[in-house]
């Protein structure tokens, strides 16, 4: 007989469950299960009255585990953990059973069968609860220092913002130049200042700060420790510098798509990528010239390297989102240099969202012509008699084939993820399908990564413009500061555990762990695996890797899973 004292509450959800599941029958079926001392049905388990009743039961009946069979845990897991906590019961002794979404609502057509399934589900929940143990969150003191990887506009802005908040910052820049892509960008929208000017201001400000230290030719080579207290090593011009930081912000930026040889005649003199064209514009004073010759006609081809268009293998499926705006702006600058210029924009769709629509308007007002082509019939670029002929079917005139002479062809190129392999090896940050660093949740946790204490911002995360990059850099700053200013962090205890008796240290678990959370320690006579509680995310990847079955995740242990399977088995029961 179990010595556990379990309270079980079966919720009607005001009919959402009880209209299809006979809750009283479920109650009858489980009330004699081993360890159950309270078995009740309730109209709304989440109501204040019901919560109070649970608290009273926990106290009066001295319950040491609780099961609520109600809705999906995504809704109320934390509610009922809170109920347990208020009653003095460790919250990890609580188990939720998802009767609404996964039973009553899914089987409204067969109430009888739904009731049978509900019995199995609640029994499994009880079996799991029987094997729960009280767990504590791990508390770690934080270090009030941060590392920013990458000294582009995002990194520099994040560094200054952290410094403002009294957090010391180290900035590690891989190249010998500070400022990243923005420094090379020329005039920018909407303030019309040069990117290099913006960067110079940021650098000047950073240099004034005692608590900001920028390293160039510096690479992150090692990272250990955990959120709030990382030990990292930088390789700065060959010299290894150890640092101790509480948070890391990764702002490593993007690569500009390099077209394949011959993609829209790329490689021929006069076919430029958008960044190359922007540099040309930046160097021009007076009329737009190329190699000393005046430019009369310019054709832009959009979406080069974006949205599945590429002559390379594995084309990028995403829209690079910044390029329409950037091309419009470039077109407007070009017009201002040479008002007589004829500009032809060959596009698939124009995506000048938000205020950038004004750029589109401005470009049109300045006489730029927009020619929509079909995805399946991209323009062709031919070189003839010292200029280019662009052949394109104009969708808006029902496929009229146009022949446009151009002096310059500008390929409006995509933003691509940087291949940061050595850095990825150190940080172990997950990448999205597009190859950019991936956040935990695109809307709710947009700058956090699954590695606690490591944040992402700027174009390392996704294609975006500099304003959006800085916005995300400042978001990462405030997330870092919130973490470091509190002085300590609490970590979820639902992580992997090692059965030291069973472990024979074969190191198979080490390679299975995506977070390098498993190490080795001596235990009496032998060496066994050890889990770094601050690093382990509780994914359980190591569990099936262990040939001895010595690993488990708390809350999902081998005993619990088997007990649940046993409890659900109807045929022998």
């Amino acid at each position, binding site marked *: 007989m179990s010595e556990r004292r379990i309270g079980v509450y079966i919720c009607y959800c005001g009919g959402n469950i009880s209209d299809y599941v006979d809750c009283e029958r479920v109650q009858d079926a489980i009330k004699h299960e081993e360890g159950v001392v309270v078995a009740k049905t309730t109209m709304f388990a989440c109501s204040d009255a019901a919560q109070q009743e649970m608290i009273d039961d926990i106290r009066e009946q001295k319950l040491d585990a609780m099961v609520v069979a109600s809705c999906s845990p995504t809704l109320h897991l934390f509610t009922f953990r809170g109920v347990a906590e208020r009653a003095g019961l460790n919250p990890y002794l609580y188990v939720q059973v998802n009767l609404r*979404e996964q039973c009553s609502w899914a089987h409204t057509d067969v109430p009888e069968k739904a009731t049978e399934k509900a019995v199995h589900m609640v029994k*499994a929940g009880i079996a799991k609860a029987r094997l729960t143990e009280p767990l504590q969150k791990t508390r770690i003191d934080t270090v009030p220092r941060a590392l920013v990887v990458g000294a582009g506009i995002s990194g520099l802005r994040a560094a200054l913002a952290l410094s403002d908040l009294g957090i010391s910052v180290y900035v590690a820049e891989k190249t010998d130049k500070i400022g990243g892509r923005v420094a090379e960008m020329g005039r920018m929208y909407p303030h019309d200042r040069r990117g290099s000017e913006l960067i110079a201001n940021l650098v000047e400000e950073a240099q004034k700060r005692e608590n900001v230290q920028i390293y160039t030719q510096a690479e992150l080579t090692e990272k250990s420790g955990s959120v709030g207290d990382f030990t990292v090593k930088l390789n700065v011009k060959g010299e290894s510098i150890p640092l101790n930081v509480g948070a890391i912000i990764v702002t490593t930026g993007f690569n500009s798509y390099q077209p394949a040889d011959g993609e829209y005649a790329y490689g021929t003199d006069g076919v430029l990528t958008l960044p190359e064209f922007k540099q040309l514009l930046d160097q021009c004073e007076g009329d737009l010239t190329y190699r000393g010759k005046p430019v009369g006609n310019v054709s832009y081809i959009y979406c080069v390297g974006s949205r599945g268009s590429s002559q390379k293998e594995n084309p990028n499926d995403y829209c690079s989102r910044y390029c329409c705006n950037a091309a419009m702006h470039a077109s407007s600058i070009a017009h201002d240099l040479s008002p007589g210029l004829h500009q032809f924009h060959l596009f698939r769709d124009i995506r000048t969202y938000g205020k950038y629509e004004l750029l589109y308007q401005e470009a049109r007002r300045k006489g730029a012509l927009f020619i929509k082509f079909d995805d399946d019939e991209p323009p062709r670029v031919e070189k003839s008699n010292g200029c280019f002929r662009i052949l394109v079917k104009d969708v808006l005139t029902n496929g009229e084939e146009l022949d446009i002479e151009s002096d310059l062809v500008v390929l409006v190129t995509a933003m691509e993820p940087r291949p940061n392999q050595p850095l990825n090896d150190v940080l172990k940050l997950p990448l999205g399908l597009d190859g950019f660093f991936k956040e935990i949740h695109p809307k709710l946790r947009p700058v956090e990564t699954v590695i606690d204490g490591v944040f992402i911002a700027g174009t390392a995360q996704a294609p975006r413009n500099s304003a959006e990059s800085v916005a995300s850099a400042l978001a990462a700053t405030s997330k870092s500061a919130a973490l470091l200013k509190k002085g300590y962090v609490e970590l979820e205890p639902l992580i992997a555990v090692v059965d030291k008796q069973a472990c024979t240290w074969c190191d198979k678990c080490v390679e299975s762990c995506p977070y390098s959370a498993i190490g080795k320690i001596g235990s009496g006579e032998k060496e066994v695996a050890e889990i770094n509680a601050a690093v382990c995310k509780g994914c*359980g990847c190591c569990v099936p890797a262990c040939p001895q079955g010595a690993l488990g995740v708390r809350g999902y242990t081998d005993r619990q899973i088997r007990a649940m399977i046993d409890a659900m088995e109807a045929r*022998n029961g």
Partner: protein
Amino acid sequence: MEKGGGAAGEGFRPRILVFSTESISDIGIDLAGSSHMHYPPTAISIPLPCSSGIRPDWILYALGHGFDGVFVAADGTDCPFVPDCTGRTAKLVDQAQNLLRENDIKPERLKMAAVCSVCAESFQKHMKSFFDALKGLGPTRKAG
């Protein structure tokens, strides 16, 4: 260990154990429920953090203890933990199928598919077709 499909009576309703994941496939399965999309009520799930954490012997255990099929509702590419979750889970499923073969259980009793957080419809389809397939296979029975 396993008897032939002929053992299935007319009223045979295969029981399916679903290994789901809390942050991805459960969301999809929940969505099927909240959309009132019916699937066989003999399908019942045990949620885990990640489908790459399923022990193959749990699958064998389930098939030995009253379940006629096991469905792994994998995280797929949405996995918040590991980018190669699909590959990892597939490997586990492979191992488990070998384990089933060794124990004279048809590997068809184990099925894996990625179920994303909006994959309600595909989950429903999987359940129905797996249910029908298992009906053809008949019940798994422990020897003796």
